[in-house]
């Protein structure tokens, strides 16, 4: 028996060794990892969660370079390439835009946003809403204000989905693995109501402004602006109609309101008027000092100028802007150039054929263009108007520097991309304007014209035109259809490259959308040079002509974006028609 006692003793020491070691040995080692308690343990770290909510939510439509999972959507190119504002030179590595402009939208390929990413942004906002109360060093008021900010960002993301997809699933909390996730698409009306509810709730809590170190976060004005934009899209012809653009049978309510109502235009105008009223009593204003080149240049370029209500604020040069290597190439399309007037308010006469003409003719004509053109584009061979005497902004830089590798000869087209960098000096980054006060003037002009309030429409339209240097050339047109065309043209010029035109032309259902705007032949200027190596100055250019660069694809199903086929296959979404 002694033997067994000895064995048991040995085993006990074995087991106790095992037991005592186990807890320590298999414990996760101390590390720098973050869990939710740590994230919301102080206002400083919580600010990072808030920052991410801004970063993600407001990215919609703005292409960022670089890797990482935020870079979904377009891989190369911007919405302005898709809308035909910019001429795509067909470079294979700009696959993001090239597949869409050449092959159309498809449920099997990525689109200009990423459906999944919308809900990742929204979840980030809910993460903050759900946990901000844990932060010890924040007042109750501050916490309520943060929650209102998050609601506003959620509203923004739904508004962005609203114009892209129509009705989408409404998620009103952080879903867990146990939740029923089979959330179907809500109707167009339900999504619109949801956006307005969120904006109205947030409006009551949001501040009118922030202390200087937090400026750039959403104010009451932003909540108003999101609501105004949503109502604007609700009023435009694509949704505000008895019949949808393509039939979806019993599910037409997902893509169409099912009736035309003038009231939608009135609601849109009123919402925009509320934005203007709030803005102009809170230090925002249309910049108009009588120097149109400078005024417009400042309004679209200078960070935090009085016209900006909300901007995508980032340092670094990772926005796909003209200033970055990969974003710099390519220029304005001929179609968009035709929207601009001469500085004296009259039409420029550009060639209507593809005959090769002398460069001197081009140089003379381009010099006559209106200030907004000069603030937005750089002309071939001419000292850049937006940054005079700065070689970096000359058109040849597109072809002369190997590292601007998507460039090449003839990337200038009808004006090199330069917008958002007016007198930028050495600034390499930009703040993309998401809401600029001028938008709400044009909103009212467009809406009032539809409801027959022509005087209101003209007065608001002329505010923008006056600032643009057409003070002595006010629009007096009272014919509804003609005025509508004038206002649409004003949108194209005033908001060139500001992520407006792609969804404007779709929601207006423009007749020529497939014939030169998005689809059909896309043209640009083609130059010849007297030598083969850059740099190129005016004397090196020989001729210019209008040439077709590529054929864009348009089909009616492209009015709204497709849901990804992989998501449709999961069986809870109804696909938009035609995909």
């Amino acid at each position, binding site marked *: 028996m002694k*033997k*067994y006692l*000895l*064995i*048991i003793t040995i*085993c006990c020491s*074995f*087991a*106790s*060794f*095992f*037991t005592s*070691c*186990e*807890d320590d*040995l*298999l*414990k*996760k*080692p101390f590390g720098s*990892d*973050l*869990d939710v308690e*740590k*994230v919301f343990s102080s206002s400083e770290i919580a600010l*990072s*969660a808030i*920052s*991410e909510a*801004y*970063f*993600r939510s407001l990215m919609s439509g703005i292409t960022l370079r670089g890797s*990482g999972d*935020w870079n979904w959507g377009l891989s190369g190119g911007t919405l302005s390439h898709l809308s035909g504002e910019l001429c795509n030179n067909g470079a*294979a590595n700009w696959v993001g835009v090239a*597949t869409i402009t*050449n092959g159309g939208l*498809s449920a099997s390929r990525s689109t200009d946003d990423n459906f*999944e990413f919308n809900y*990742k942004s929204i*979840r*980030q906002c809910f993460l903050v809403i759900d946990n901000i109360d844990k932060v010890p060093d924040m007042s109750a008021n501050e916490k309520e204000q943060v929650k209102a900010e998050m609601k506003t960002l959620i509203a923004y993301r739904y508004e962005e989905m609203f114009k892209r997809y129509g009705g989408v699933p409404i*998620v009103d909390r952080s*879903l867990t*693995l146990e939740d029923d*996730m089979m*959330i179907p698409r809500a109707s167009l009306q339900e999504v619109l109501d949801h956006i307005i509810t969120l904006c109205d709730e947030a409006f009551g809590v949001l501040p009118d402004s922030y202390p*200087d170190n*937090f400026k*750039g*976060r959403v104010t009451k004005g932003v909540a108003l602006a999101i609501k105004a934009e949503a109502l604007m899209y609700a009023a435009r012809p694509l949704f505000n109609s008895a019949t949808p653009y393509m039939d979806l049978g019993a599910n037409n309510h997902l893509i169409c309101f099912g009736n035309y109502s003038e009231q939608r235009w009135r609601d849109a105008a009123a919402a925009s008027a509320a934005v203007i009223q709030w803005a102009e009593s809170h230090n925002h204003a249309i910049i108009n000092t009588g120097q149109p080149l400078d005024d417009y240049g400042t309004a679209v370029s200078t960070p*935090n100028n009085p016209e900006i209500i909300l901007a995508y*604020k*980032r*340092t670094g040069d990772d926005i796909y802007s003209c200033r970055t290597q990969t974003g710099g190439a390519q220029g304005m399309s001929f179609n968009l150039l035709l929207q601009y007037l001469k500085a004296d308010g009259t039409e420029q006469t550009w060639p209507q054929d593809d005959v090769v003409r002398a460069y001197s003719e081009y140089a003379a004509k381009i010099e006559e263009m209106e200030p907004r053109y000069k603030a937005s584009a750089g002309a071939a061979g001419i000292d850049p108007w937006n940054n005079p005497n700065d070689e970096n902004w000359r058109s040849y830089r597109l072809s002369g520097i190997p590292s601007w590798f998507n460039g090449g000869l003839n990337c200038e087209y009808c004006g090199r991309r330069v917008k958002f960098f007016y007198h930028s000096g050495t600034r390499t980054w930009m703040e993309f304007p998401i809401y600029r006060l001028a938008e709400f003037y044009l909103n009212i002009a467009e809406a009032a014209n539809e409801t027959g309030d022509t005087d209101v429409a003209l007065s608001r339209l002329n505010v923008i035109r006056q600032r643009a240097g057409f003070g002595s050339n006010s629009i007096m047109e009272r014919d509804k259809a003609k005025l509508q065309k004038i206002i649409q043209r004003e949108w194209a010029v005033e908001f060139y490259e500001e992520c407006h035109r792609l969804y404007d032309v779709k929601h207006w259902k423009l007749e020529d959308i497939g014939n030169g705007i998005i689809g059909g032949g896309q043209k640009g200027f083609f130059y010849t040079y007297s030598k083969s190596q850059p740099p190129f100055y005016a004397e090196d250019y020989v001729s210019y002509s209008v040439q077709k660069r590529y054929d864009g694809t348009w089909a009616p199903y492209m009015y709204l974006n497709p849901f990804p*086929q*992989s*998501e449709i*296959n*999961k069986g809870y979404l109804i696909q938009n028609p035609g995909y």
Partner: protein
Amino acid sequence: MTNNSFIIKTMLCVAMIVLPSVCIQAQETDTTALKKIAIMEPGIYFPVAKARSSAAVTSISGETLYKTPAANLTNTLYGLSSGLLVQQAGGEPGRDAASLTVRGLGSFNYGSFAVFIDGFQTTDSYFEYLLPAEIESISILKDAAALAPFGMIGANGILWIETKRGKVGKPKIQAQFRTGTQQLQHLTKPLPSVEYASLYNEAVSNDNGRVWNPVYSDSEINAYRNGGTNVDWYDAALKSSTPFTSTDLTFDGGGENARYFIMLGYVNNQGFYDVTNDDTHANRQIQQYNIRSNFDFNMFKIFEGRVNLGGRIEDRKSPAFDGSTLWSNLESYPNNIYPVKNADGTWTGTAAFPYNPVASIRELGYYSSHNRSIQANFSLKEKLDFIIPGLYISEAASFSNWTEGAYNVTRDYARYNTNGVNETTHEDRNYAVSSDIAKNQWNRNQLQLSAGYDRQSGRHLLHSGFDYLQSSYNVDANQNGSAGNQMKYNRQHISGRVHYEYDKRFTGEMSFSYSGADDFAEGNCFGFYPAVSGAWILSNESALRQNPIVDFLKVRASAGKTAYNIFEDAQFSRYLYQQYYVYSGSFLMGNSAPTSVNGIIPYYMAVPDIFAEESMKYNFGIDASLFNALDITAEVFMDKRQGILYEDNSYLSVIGITPPVQNSGKVTTSGLELTLEYNGSAEKFSYRIGGNLTCLKDKIDYIPELTPPSPAAASMGYSIGLPNGYECAGWYDLTDFNDDGTLKDGLPIPSFGNVQPGDLKYRDVSGDGVIDERDIVKIGKRSYPKMYYAFHLEADYAGFDFRALFQGVAGREVNILSSAYNKVHAFENSVTTAYEIAKGRWAYYPEQGIDTRSTATYPRLTTQHNENNYRASTFWMKNGDFLRLRTIEIGYTIPPQLLSGFNLTNVRIFVSGMNLFTLSSLLKDYDLDPETLSGHPGVKSYNTGIKISF
């Protein structure tokens, strides 16, 4: 830890040790020593008689490994064991490991086997440069019976290595020396300048709307013909052969109470670059210094001690230029870009081709690294025969570690185009020395307490062993790619094995592991993995005992569970049971002094019950010896995996978070193995013919993948890693196009850009008039073979011995477009050259007398990126079967009577060759080595050597 579980574990320990001993106590007592059995099969805790084993294990001796003169141990394993698939990679000295898998891929996350040396786990890199002279045997543990005690690291097989130990007897000294010359197995060379230029003209014209638009004029092409620039970069940068030397010296001996085995070894493996070794230059090379000292001692009839020290220094050097980039440049730089040097003696280089391959190895200095590794194992066994005869306990520890230091001598040099202009930013610089760089280390510490009971009485034989193990693996963050939470890997187990034989007719074995790792949530760290197996030795039944045909016959079967903890391989982020947050984007706040605030997002959605992948293995085998000459082993097996980790894409996007990684995937692998060995002799002549065959089949039973646009592009229901692509339907012909260059009505339109005559045509599987993702199908077999086989011939005659080993694979296809990128893409983006394969291009320029339309074997040429032609399709899938002569050796043993005057006991001299011969359709038809399709080729070698024993 609660008291309850303490009690349970204590009782478990008691039960494990006491119960078997009590059972045996009931039998008659016979404490005599175990009988010596001819062939033992190594395994965890104790070896068993091979003849009565119930497990699937193949053992290879160190002597067999020595017969293949390769520097890297993995390259000596070809064809030596059924179930062990060895696939050759490149032959760059010091970076030449073959890839090994045991019984198939197992899981769609792949995953690797584990290596044990003298009972303790170590890393692959430590294993790779062991010398055959220090190895007693390598055993491949293949089935559940052999693997269950390894718990969470057992599912992908184990390489169980035992090093040599001293034997009782007079001191023995053995010296081996071999030296040889190595050559590259195969070089695929690009076209000479004349052909390059002619084809380039065609490519440019094809891109010019098929209007003839030559870049190279006829006179330029003629100049190439008459001595113009035409550099064979391989010839210019490489030597045709390079030396390999290995030598080792072993001492062993001792008495009953103390025995020793000592080995000293040195290997020098030089690379192929044509460069000297001096203060500022170095060829690619590895020199290794191995030392092993295994010491056994006994004290007081109770204690048995072991001290094993295995140490090694690896010194690597190479030119100061990345090896894989150099080989990529050699493959892609055309012959006509520039001469090796300009007429004025300066190095050539241009903006497009800045890295003159010859200058890259001669003018940049060298890199060197110095690696030290050691495995030190200590164990002390106490035989408790005074308590219960046969009972013992043992304590052991293993410390293995590796460190690396570096010393680099580097400079830059100016390079000029043929007009004397430096198009690059590179300028001449002086040599600079840097040594405080690339410091890396890992260490693995293991503690083991074991107990066992061995007993034989009458017809009963029992072995049992149990252990408690804790293992801690610490590695520098940059060794596994991801810093932070992936530096420390701890695991723990209680495992055991009980082996029982009755009357040499029946064997029953039970083994298990209660195995845990630190990657899982508290309370969920451990899994239980049991296995049972049995064998019936039919030839020991009276009916067969005197059978003239059957000398030996055994059937055996095993079933059991093991697991694979993928987190040890750093394939996923660890600790997925908790929700983590990571820094992601950033947003600017503030106007006058804006600050960028880093954003935080949730990482993978946490899965509280995340755990190791589980493998249920079944094995059935027959071992037989017939006619006193033929040995046969045949086995069938199945491996059912479940709980394979995969990002669960079935979750809906509205969840708004990266989908959770879950234990959801399932794979079934099955296969058969056959090993035959025939021994024949006639008078002084004896010979052996043998071979082995492994056939594998696997299928993904479940994977939560996103539904692809084409049903055939799915993974589920297919073999692991089966290639997807388009089904090629020939070429576009001139008649397929309208006058304006558009495709005629009715032809499906490819979505990869405009096509022209000579482009590849694909089948519109979906029938929607467009060639896109919806038309993807499975395009062939994967490069992991279905069948792996080897056969050997051995003969002895009057002191001469001969051996040849062939190894081959079948049921394999290779996508040459991706595997041999530079050699197959012609002129892609104007940065690659063209190879023989491009001469089969489709071309039609009647005015130039070019019309290959009816004979084309390659699409029309282009200098641009071509999305249509250069994508995975049936067109690029080629038969990858091959058969290689891995080893051939002729030796002569000097008759002992001639040696007696010299104090020598054995002298053998030999000549041998490695990889001398390959049969392959890839080699024959496409000039490509079937295994090493790009980068540094594998090596073949011719060697002579001598072995002397004192």
